[in-house]
């Protein structure tokens, strides 16, 4: 099949369409680049620790719940945990009911503000799911392997 049309006027129209696509593509590209900060749904703990997140403003922080840091209050719904991107950690305080997928080692996105002590006071905590799907046996097998690896390191 001929992709390039034979007739001059058709070639011209094809050229115009390609021009249109290129034009719209680059302008949308520029706009998204200009908005890049705002296109991100959340800041990583490293960005927050480095002071890149807005002060006195509501923003979201995303990362893993650091294993062994989840502390629940006995008398209220307060939960304390650290969010990590493996490089830096940020302390998060949340009062409320957590989603089903919330657990240690799980990705979460929390919305809230940093207080003066550098603790992130969250008004909402969402669980971020990863892209892997597998049966429970496989999930258990990976966990066992990781534990084995960790114990070998020690």
């Amino acid at each position: 099949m001929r992709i390039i049309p034979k007739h001059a006027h058709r070639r011209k129209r094809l050229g115009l369409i390609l021009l249109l696509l290129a034009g719209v593509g680059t302008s949308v590209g520029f706009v998204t680049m200009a908005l890049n900060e705002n296109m991100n749904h959340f800041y990583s703990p490293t960005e927050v620790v480095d002071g890149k997140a807005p002060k006195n403003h509501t923003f979201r922080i995303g990362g893993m719940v650091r294993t062994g840091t989840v502390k629940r209050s006995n008398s209220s719904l307060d939960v304390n945990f650290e969010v990590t991107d493996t490089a830096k950690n940020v302390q998060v305080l949340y009062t409320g009911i957590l989603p089903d997928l919330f657990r240690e080692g799980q990705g979460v996105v929390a919305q809230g503000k940093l207080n003066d002590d550098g603790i992130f006071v969250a008004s909402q905590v969402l669980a971020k799911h990863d892209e892997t799907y597998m049966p429970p046996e496989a999930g258990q097998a990976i966990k066992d392997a990781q534990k084995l690896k960790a114990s070998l390191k020690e």
Partner: protein
Amino acid sequence: MWLWFHKLGSPKYFYTLAGKLIPWFGWITLLLVLAGLYGGLILAPTDYQQGESYRIIYIHVPAAWMSLFIYIVMAICGAIGLIWKMKMADIIASSSAPIGAAFTFLALVTGSLWGKPMWGTWWTWDARLTSELILLFLYLGFMGLQSAIVDRRTAANACAVLALVGVVNIPIIHYSVEWWNTLHQGSTVMRMDKPAMDTRMLIPLLLMWLSSQFYYGTVLMMRARNEVLDRERDTGWVKELAMEGK
């Protein structure tokens, strides 16, 4: 191939061919849906983290893929229509729009139903969800524009340009989960590595996707055939058909 393309551009040829293909496509759709649902809802194992809730992907993922695919089809038809002034290109594009809109809506709704128990929210304005919502508006805009302009040729040209401008959104939807931090997870199947999914879960998913493709084919041909009759009602062959009482 070139000749076949020209033949398909003839509404009469398309009408007859589609009439023969529709029952085949319909039955294949049904068989694939049954196989896919059986595999997905009964044979596939539960997920290690999400339990049974993950099974909504057997609707959500094919619907989302189709929403992108159909829009690309419409954009290609738009380009063909603008360059070669083919009547059939416009017919295919305008018959596809409501189907694409339905798939987009389905993807958004099923995603939302899954998001509440898993993420903890029905909706969030991250790049993936927002760009998919824009896609729904593009489909609706296309349909609105089509019916707002009375003259068919003007409508076809305007809609073709809209489809082409909107196609920029397609790579944004697909790559949104890689380019930016989003709440939506990354791609499980459509990625450079091998799919991050157990084979027993993956096969029904691909079956469901294939059935969606055939469903799209079936409904598209049915809609396009009606559209052909409507647009060609003053031609000899349509009048003959009407006389025969078919």
